[in-house]
């Protein structure tokens, strides 16, 4: 959160610089250092009547690049985060599948999922860099990036579609294997929840898994069950995000 005394323009610049450096894989501590230092500088400059251009020059994009070039990449840190995203997203599948029986995945599905997660990460980072460098407003960014971010969703649907039609070896986890994977997934989710100090993962997971599972015990038609569970899932996530947003505000 930047200083409220800072002008909107400077505030937006600092936010974009933060996002740009983050998307370039720089160390968190160093990002915090330089944005804090620039915030103090901008604050003093504005008090003395200097425009932001006097500080960052006429091209904020060039200035962001200049700073980025002087900072080291946090390779091991980012490798850990990427691994967490790939494995973490798979745990969601694990919980929803285990309620239907022992786990079994095709090699195509696993490879497809890993490749799609990497595609997702690359697109998120490339989009962040694109938006931050050009200092695009939030609304414009959402409109521009929705089609881009739909690509991994389309790939996900394609993987599900082709998985039934392509002959690929199956990996059966068996009873012990299944419980081992579930236990590891639970540890990972709890660990990430504690580390990030947010309940979002657990709430989203419960909203994704429980409605479908509980509705399967009812005598409702399958289509109706799916529709209701989808409504509960997305309605619940929206409600949760709204509550979090209101609390933060």
């Amino acid at each position, binding site marked *: 959160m930047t*200083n409220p005394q800072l002008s909107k323009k400077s505030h937006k610049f600092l936010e974009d610089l933060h996002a740009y450096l983050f998307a370039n894989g720089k160390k968190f501590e160093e990002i915090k*250092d*330089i944005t*804090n*230092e*620039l915030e*103090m*500088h901008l*604050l*003093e*400059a504005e008090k003395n009547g*200097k425009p932001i*251009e*006097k*500080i*960052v*020059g006429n091209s904020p994009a060039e*200035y962001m690049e*200049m*700073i980025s*070039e*002087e*900072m080291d990449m946090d390779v091991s840190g980012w490798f850990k985060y990427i691994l967490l995203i790939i494995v973490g997203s798979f745990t969601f599948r694990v919980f929803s599948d285990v309620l239907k029986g022992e786990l079994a995945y095709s090699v195509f599905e696993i490879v497809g999922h890993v490749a799609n997660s990497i595609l997702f990460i690359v697109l998120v980072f490339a989009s962040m860099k694109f938006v931050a460098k050009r200092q695009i407003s939030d609304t414009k960014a959402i409109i521009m990036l929705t089609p881009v971010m739909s690509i991994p969703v389309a790939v996900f649907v394609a993987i599900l579609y082709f998985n039934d039609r392509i002959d690929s070896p199956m990996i059966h986890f068996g009873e012990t294997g299944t419980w081992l994977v579930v236990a590891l997934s639970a540890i990972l989710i709890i660990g990430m929840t504690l580390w990030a100090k947010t309940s979002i993962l657990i709430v989203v997971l419960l909203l994704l898994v429980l409605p479908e599972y509980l509705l399967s015990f009812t005598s409702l038609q399958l289509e109706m069950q799916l529709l209701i569970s989808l409504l509960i899932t997305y309605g619940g996530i929206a409600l949760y995000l709204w509550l979090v947003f209101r609390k933060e505000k």
Partner: protein
Amino acid sequence: MSSTQMLKGIIDGCVLAIIKNKEVYGYELAEKLEAYGFESFSEGTIYPMLMRMQREELVSATFKKSTAGPRRKYYSLTQKGEKELQHFITRWEQLQQSVNQVLQNGVNSS
């Protein structure tokens, strides 16, 4: 060559000289440079420069509390930085001498 390009090589040495006199924080350094007449540069360029100097161990930084608000990052010169400043002074004096000679000859012969 534009004055900005010419400035880039020289400003490094001047920054080292200012820091040698007294440890400074970013805004203070920019103000001092401006007071010495370096007005055409964007103030923010001192930060990538200071980052590079820190990596090359020419300057070191410490955080200190300020009355104005959050902690400020103060820069001071290291031993390596002092040596680099001496090199810069020697290079600058040689360059200045050469340029002066060329200009004087140019004026005398015209």
